[in-house]
């Protein structure tokens, strides 16, 4: 290929020279170039090496369908592999290199695969890795393992950087009346028409300039047109790909904000992920020119006819001097004349018997030779096209008649409308025999297809269909417009002739269908022989259409060959479903800002800063950051929590328990409501009393537990576990709004409004007495166990205090409005220090509750009944409540169910882990007979203890040694089953 830049051609700015690096060498191009255009103008033929056979590949198109010129852009952490050089804008300092080659694309050792291609046919991976013939030798041997790794390494495309992505991405949202995808002739016409009807219009274009195929016309001015559209009030988004369509006219789009700069400018993101919500979508997505399969049709110097026209009229690059055009349709004639006028010697071989005289005359006057009945058979040349063998059709075969010397071969095998986006909506396309392409079917959604995407080939008709689409959209949105008419499909003077493949007479040919995955027409035949005849099987067996072009260029050739083999029509064979994305998108763009610390929301309590200032190490529980432990003098976790738990038992400890869910329940029917929701009795809870309650689900299993405080006749304050706060709130709302609609109750989440601290230990009342306005209020008489009071701290902070204990000690929970949290904690801590108290975190909280056999989320995991956790006695049998009918159904009433027990190691010096399976002695198998859910070192007992479940419960196993099996950590330990109330079983400490 001997390409050259022409001064008077193209729309690039030939005064603005940009330098770039290709394979470590510096080259120059112009502003407005694609990387492919610059490479072409610099006469660089080999851009990459193919996937399996490492064959040299060059530029094959001028757009997103490119499957030859895939390159890697940037280096180190900025590496972006598999970029289509045809749609990469050139910028100053761009660094690009070829792919899948060693040492380089011009001389690649992997080319040896080309000679071994017999072994790399379709199904090669399945056969080798499964040891199927002819690869059954050596299966399972060491050589096999090494060989597998080598093959995996040899195949492939570009390599991604293993470093973290340094770029930033963001998400954005937009609304409009009409979203128009594609800014070719029909898209522009539709946009203008819709805007003229006062609709809010967004026009998106994947290229950096608008125009689509208009860009291949010499007289089209894209800047002027864009200005005109914007003046008409249309939002024009270039460098933006609508990659997927979703329900309700929602489109997902990627805007490449900074991919045409060396580094992002002005703190803007590299790419922006748009979610567009519209009322009507017009798909003016155009169509793609197809190849034809024949031997060596992948040699650098073969491209589509329309690509050469784009390079000429858009980029000012004449791609060859001696050009051969092979076609089966009319779309090539204008281009051949343009190329001839630009100075190339052009000869057309048309497979059809004849065409109209006018066209022939026009071609002849422009020095374009044309011969009929002829098709390409084979390309000669290794790293570039040197000549082409032309054959004449004799019956069903081709006979070689001439060999034409040339440096560029242009192919047109017909046009395929871009119907991908419609396919995303589940609309199956229809095969059109007249135009030899899949055409969009009607959608029941407000989506209209316009222009060549609808199979309309000539420019004027495309514009007319755009206008009709604009009017249709307006009409459907509810604006009265004039009548509209869609032009007929097709539009060529001479009918297209089906030519998908020229079958070679050689035994081993290389006629490629899917260039990116090196799928040849022989592979389709192999798949057929081996029974993979459905299009979906064919796709997966041969990988046809599975590369990053998703079969944009070759799929239909593959389908036609399969149809031929099955002696069916293409319409019967069908096509595979296209799924988003239309072109590859970066995962970074999907993630947007939701990475690292922003991966998920962070919830902190109003005491967060206080906790950090006082040395807390934090732990994530759900979204919440909670204090884990407060190390003293570089203590490790194990030492710290044991010290903290001991202090609570000895003196007093303070713990931030703000993360508990809090719900305000108000209204005259609040009592009735709670009595239905909780399994235990709430009907007679006096004012200023709190009660522990357990909620079940409809199916009788435990949902959550917590306390509810009766603040007044008609108001309760409910607390839930941290983990289930949102779920319980949703549940209460569901009950009130959908089931018990006559109850006069209002629920409000007040989790964020209140800060909470637990004060536990024998000195807790003394500590609190120093902090409240009237210490009398919290005396044992005035505030007995489960009593509550609403009062003030001695600096005037309003608070609610309840005598509730999770640790088994004399304890209080104190709540203040969140804004006062910091102050409250200061007062409490000053006081606690006077009694030699401590701050304790989640780990010590866990130790204390496990000693007492109190359950949390680890035990209430959605699989247990209230009986399983030994709380059945609390459930009322005098009333009906949610879950009451179901809690004793069938399996839930089984005597043999796993129930809650305490667990000691037989040898008290041993430790064990949560997740351990409990088995009978000498019967370690299956699920065992139970499981361990929580473990801790018990400062109260002086050894490790645990909570868990075992079939039959404590009474069944109290004098039997069982085994804790932990096959994952390879541990086995003898265990003793005890009552879950391991520490202070009578609960005397609770009362101080």
């Amino acid at each position, binding site marked *: 290929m001997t390409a050259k830049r022409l001064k008077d051609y193209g729309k690039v700015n030939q005064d603005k020279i940009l330098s770039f690096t290709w394979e470590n060498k510096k080259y120059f191009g112009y502003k407005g170039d694609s990387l492919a255009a610059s490479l072409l103008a610099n006469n660089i033929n080999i851009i990459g090496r193919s996937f399996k056979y490492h064959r040299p590949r060059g530029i094959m198109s001028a757009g997103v369908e490119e499957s030859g010129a895939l390159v890697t852009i940037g280096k180190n952490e900025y590496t972006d592999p598999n970029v289509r050089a045809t749609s990469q804008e050139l910028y100053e300092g761009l660094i690009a290199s070829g792919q899948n080659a060693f040492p380089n694309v011009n001389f690649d050792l992997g080319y040896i695969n080309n000679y071994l291609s017999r072994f790399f046919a379709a199904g090669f991976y399945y056969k080798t890795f499964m040891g199927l013939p002819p690869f059954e030798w050596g299966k399972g041997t060491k050589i096999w393992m090494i060989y597998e790794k080598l093959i995996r390494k040899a195949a492939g495309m570009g390599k991604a950087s293993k470093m973290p992505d340094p770029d930033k991405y963001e998400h954005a949202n937009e609304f409009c009346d009409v979203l128009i995808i594609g800014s070719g002739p029909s898209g522009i016409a539709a946009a203008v028409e819709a805007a003229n009807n006062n609709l809010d219009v967004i026009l998106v274009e994947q290229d950096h300039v608008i125009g689509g195929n208009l860009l291949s016309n010499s007289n089209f001015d894209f800047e002027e047109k864009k200005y005109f559209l914007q003046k008409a009030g249309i939002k024009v988004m270039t460098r933006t790909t609508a990659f997927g369509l979703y*329900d*309700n006219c*929602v489109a997902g789009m990627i805007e490449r904000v900074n991919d045409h700069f060396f580094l992002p400018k002005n703190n803007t993101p590299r790419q922006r992920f748009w979610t567009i*919500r519209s009322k009507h979508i017009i798909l003016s997505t155009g169509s793609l020119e197809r190849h034809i399969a024949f031997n060596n049709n992948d040699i650098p110097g073969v491209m589509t006819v329309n690509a050469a026209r784009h390079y000429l009229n858009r980029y000012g690059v004449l791609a060859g001097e001696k050009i051969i055009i092979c076609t089966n349709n009319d779309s090539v004639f204008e281009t051949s004349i343009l190329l001839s006028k630009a100075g190339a010697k052009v000869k057309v071989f048309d497979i059809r018997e004849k065409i109209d005289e006018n066209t022939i005359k026009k071609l002849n006057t422009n020095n374009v030779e044309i011969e009929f009945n002829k098709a390409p058979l084979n390309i000669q040349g290794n790293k570039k096209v040197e000549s082409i063998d032309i054959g004449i059709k004799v019956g069903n075969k081709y006979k070689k008649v001439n060999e034409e010397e040339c440096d560029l071969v242009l192919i047109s095998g017909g046009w395929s409308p871009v119907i991908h986006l419609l396919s995303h909506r589940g609309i199956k396309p229809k095969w059109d025999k007249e135009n030899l392409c899949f055409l969009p079917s009607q959608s029941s959604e407000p989506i209209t297809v316009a222009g060549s995407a609808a199979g309309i080939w000539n420019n004027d008709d495309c514009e007319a269909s755009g206008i009709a689409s604009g009017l249709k959209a307006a009409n459907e949105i509810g604006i009265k417009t004039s009548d509209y008419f869609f032009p007929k499909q097709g539009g060529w003077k001479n009918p297209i002739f089906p030519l998908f493949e020229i079958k070679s007479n050689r035994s081993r040919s290389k006629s490629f269908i899917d260039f990116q995955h090196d799928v040849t027409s022989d592979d389709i035949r192999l798949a057929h022989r081996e029974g993979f005849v459905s299009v979906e099987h064919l796709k997966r067996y041969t990988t046809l259409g599975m590369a990053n072009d998703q079969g944009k260029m070759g799929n239909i050739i593959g389908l036609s060959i399969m149809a031929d083999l099955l002696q069916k029509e293409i319409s019967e064979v069908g096509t595979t479903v296209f799924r988003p994305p239309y072109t590859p998108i970066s995962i970074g763009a999907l993630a947007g800002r939701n990475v690292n610390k922003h991966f998920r929301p962070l919830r902190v309590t109003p005491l967060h800063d206080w906790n950090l200032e006082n040395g807390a190490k934090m732990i994530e529980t759900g979204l919440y950051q909670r204090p884990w432990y407060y190390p003293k003098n570089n203590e490790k976790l194990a030492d710290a929590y044991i010290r903290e738990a001991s202090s609570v038992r000895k003196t007093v400890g303070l713990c931030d328990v703000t993360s508990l869910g809090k719900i305000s329940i108000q209204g005259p029917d609040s009592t009735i409501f709670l009595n239905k929701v909780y399994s235990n009795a709430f009907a007679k809870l006096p004012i200023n009393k709190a009660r522990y309650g357990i909620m079940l689900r*409809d199916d009788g299993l435990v949902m959550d537990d917590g306390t509810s405080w009766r603040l007044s006749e008609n108001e309760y304050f409910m607390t839930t576990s941290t983990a289930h706060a949102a779920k319980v709130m*949703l549940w209460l709302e569901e009950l009130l*709004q*959908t089931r018990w609609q006559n109850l006069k109750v209002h629920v409000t989440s007040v989790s964020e409004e209140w800060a909470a601290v637990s004060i536990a230990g024998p000195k807790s009342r003394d500590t609190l007495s120093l902090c409240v306005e009237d210490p009398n209020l919290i005396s044992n008489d005035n505030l007995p166990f489960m009593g509550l009071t609403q009062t003030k701290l001695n600096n005037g902070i309003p608070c609610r205090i309840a005598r509730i204990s999770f640790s088994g000690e004399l304890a209080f929970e104190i709540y203040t409005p969140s804004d006062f949290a910091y102050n409250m904690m200061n007062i409490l801590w000053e006081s606690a220090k006077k009694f030699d108290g401590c701050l304790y975190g989640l780990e010590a909280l866990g130790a204390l509750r496990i000693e007492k056999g109190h359950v949390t989320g680890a035990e209430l995991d959605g699989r247990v009944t209230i009986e399983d956790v030994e709380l059945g006695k609390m459930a009322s049998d005098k009333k*009906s409540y949610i879950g009451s*009918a179901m809690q004793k159904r069938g399996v839930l009433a089984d005597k043999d169910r796993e129930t809650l027990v305490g667990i000691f190691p037989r040898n008290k010096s041993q430790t064990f882990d949560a997740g351990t399976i409990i088995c009978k002695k000498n019967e370690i198998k299956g699920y065992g007979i139970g499981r361990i859910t929580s473990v801790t070192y018990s400062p109260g007992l002086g050894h490790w203890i645990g909570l868990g479940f075992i079939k039959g419960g404590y009474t069944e196993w109290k004098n039997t040694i069982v085994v804790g099996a932990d096959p994952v950590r390879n541990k086995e330990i003898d265990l003793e089953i005890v009552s879950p109330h391991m520490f202070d079983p009578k609960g005397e400490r609770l009362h101080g």
Partner: protein
Amino acid sequence: MIRIKCPYCGERDHSEFTYGSDASIEYPNLESNAKDWTEAIFFRKNIYGKQIETWHHTNGCRLWLIIERCTITHKIFSIKPAHPEIHKLLKNQNNI
């Protein structure tokens, strides 16, 4: 993406909502036996086509809604608040 026209908040993405369940189910009284409850909570139809269902506007007004939706096309036919009193109130306010 399904777009849901919340009677209180207006049209929003379905990601703001939580799907509840089949709204045609009538839950038995709490006093009913396990058989009735089993019928209501376990034996459910996998409807192909138009279904009446509940949705919760979790990241919005927190109304529970009754929505008629086609499970195949996601087309929504009607939306109203599950609570009849709220429905009446909004109807009067919005004249819907």
